[in-house]
């Protein structure tokens, strides 16, 4: 690639007691690119997401983020206020369970508007208009703007979480199994939506999933993890069509066999 990476990590290592969760992991993410981290549960992929987003500190290794002005930041050496600011403006985090991120006692509009208000927006009409526009972009009816999320279906909740996350136009979004726990038909629609939004807005994303079909649909590149190590990485089509590592081959064949 020509230009500089948005996010880079070198030598990330983390143990939970005697269990290695990450072993010497390197990663690079370029602007506008979607990187899928795949593996079975316990492979360390969610831990990697938490370390890259600064929610967990590694035992060893570094991770940098390049801000819009081009300056590099060591994610784990940043002061807490700066990291918090990143998390509510330049970055986004989409959880597998939208209830972890949404305020269930606050209207859909308030949920979408919160990040705008945290960033200093003080015009009610503008905030509401932005909320409505985002609801429409995630295919939620505008007249649901004053409804509480508890009246929403699982798929709608996930789309509301995405609207809440993208409203500040983040450059980088971390996604943890965004389609997990949803019906297959709902999943397909959601994947379509995410793919469209990410392409249109030029968002870079680190996507953790155990589902190779999700990775194939959304990701430009793939990293395969097993027991805390990256065993294979490369362009999505190459890795999935021509897997070289035995573990990747096993993953791919088990999907095909199923």
């Amino acid at each position: 690639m020509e230009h500089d990476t948005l996010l880079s990590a070198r030598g990330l290592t983390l143990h939970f007691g005697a269990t290695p969760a990450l072993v010497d992991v390197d990663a690079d993410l370029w602007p506008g690119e979607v990187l899928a981290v795949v593996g079975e549960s316990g492979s360390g992929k969610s831990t990697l997401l938490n370390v890259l987003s600064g929610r967990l500190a590694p035992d060893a290794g570094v991770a940098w983020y390049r801000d819009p002005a081009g300056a590099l930041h060591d994610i784990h050496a940043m002061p807490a206020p700066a990291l918090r600011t990143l998390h509510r403006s330049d970055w986004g985090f989409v959880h597998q369970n939208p209830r972890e991120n949404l305020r269930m006692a606050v209207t859909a509009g308030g949920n979408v508007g919160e990040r705008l208000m945290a960033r200093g927006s003080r015009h009610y009409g503008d905030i509401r208009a932005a909320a409505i526009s985002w609801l429409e972009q995630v295919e939620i009816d505008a007249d649901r703007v004053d409804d509480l999320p508890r009246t929403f279906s699982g798929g709608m909740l996930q789309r509301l979480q995405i609207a809440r996350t993208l409203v500040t136009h983040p450059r980088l979004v971390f996604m943890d199994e965004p389609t997990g726990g949803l019906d297959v038909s709902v999943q397909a629609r959601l994947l379509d939506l995410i793919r469209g939004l990410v392409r249109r807005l030029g968002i870079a994303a680190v996507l953790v999933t155990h589902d190779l079909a999700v990775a194939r649909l959304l990701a430009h590149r793939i990293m395969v993890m097993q027991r805390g190590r990256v065993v294979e990485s490369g362009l999505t089509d190459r890795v999935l069509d021509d897997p070289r590592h035995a573990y990747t081959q096993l993953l791919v064949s088990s999907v095909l066999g199923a």
Partner: protein
Amino acid sequence: MNVASGYNFAYLDEQTKRMIRRAILKAVAIPGHQVPFGSREMPLPYGWGTGGIQVTAAVLGRDDVLKVIDQGADDTTNAVSIRRFFARTAGVATTTHTAEATVIQTRHRIPETALRQDQIIVYQVPQPEPLSRLEPSREETRRMHALADYGLMHVKLYEDITRFGHVSISYDYPVMVDGRYLMAPSPIPAFDNPKMDRMAALQLFGAGREKRIYAVPPYTSVRSLDFDDHEFRASRAPHACLLCGATDSYLDEVVIDDQGGRMFVCSDTDHCEGRRDGT
């Protein structure tokens, strides 16, 4: 030692007063920031003004003139009780006239008469944490203050406007102090909020049970939270005081019979009497 009471001047021992004054100085230095302090057990129950009493005790000198109000009035029972407490333990002069007082301890009101630079107003605070109803954990709210992470408070206002067309908070209406700290003004009616902005007097806040002191130094900006297109409005009952005819003061609604009869009178008794005496 005060002969009549057998206690030190203004009840608290000098070491304790010094500790409270240090907390006050810190609070003045960081306007709107809640400073933890070693709140003492007082002979009045928590929630009845123990924080305000400790702050007053720490700033009171022998030449001070003390005024104590509750709900704007000098003759409410709790105001009487606290005024007596200081008359007994400090022997200072007391007054009901706002203009004569050097220290004013208050619960739930700010006097209508504008305060001066040589006065201190001490607020009794039941709950110093403005975010407490939105986030119960103090560990988390402290973090939110440290990072000026106040989006949640605005979400509350957004929700109110969405549901009711206006902000439904009518007292203890949250304010931003000096553009940095979100602060609870104590349960004064929102009507009184504008009086806090650039007030000439030093404003001190004491919360005994929650063990916090905070302050607004003279001439400091105090802004009630709002939206550009839904500006803060101070509201009062749309009547004139039956006793003095004031149309700009905060009013108490007094039930005069069981047929729905009502009358409205100034909540600030000193202000009302002054207007009637023509002073």
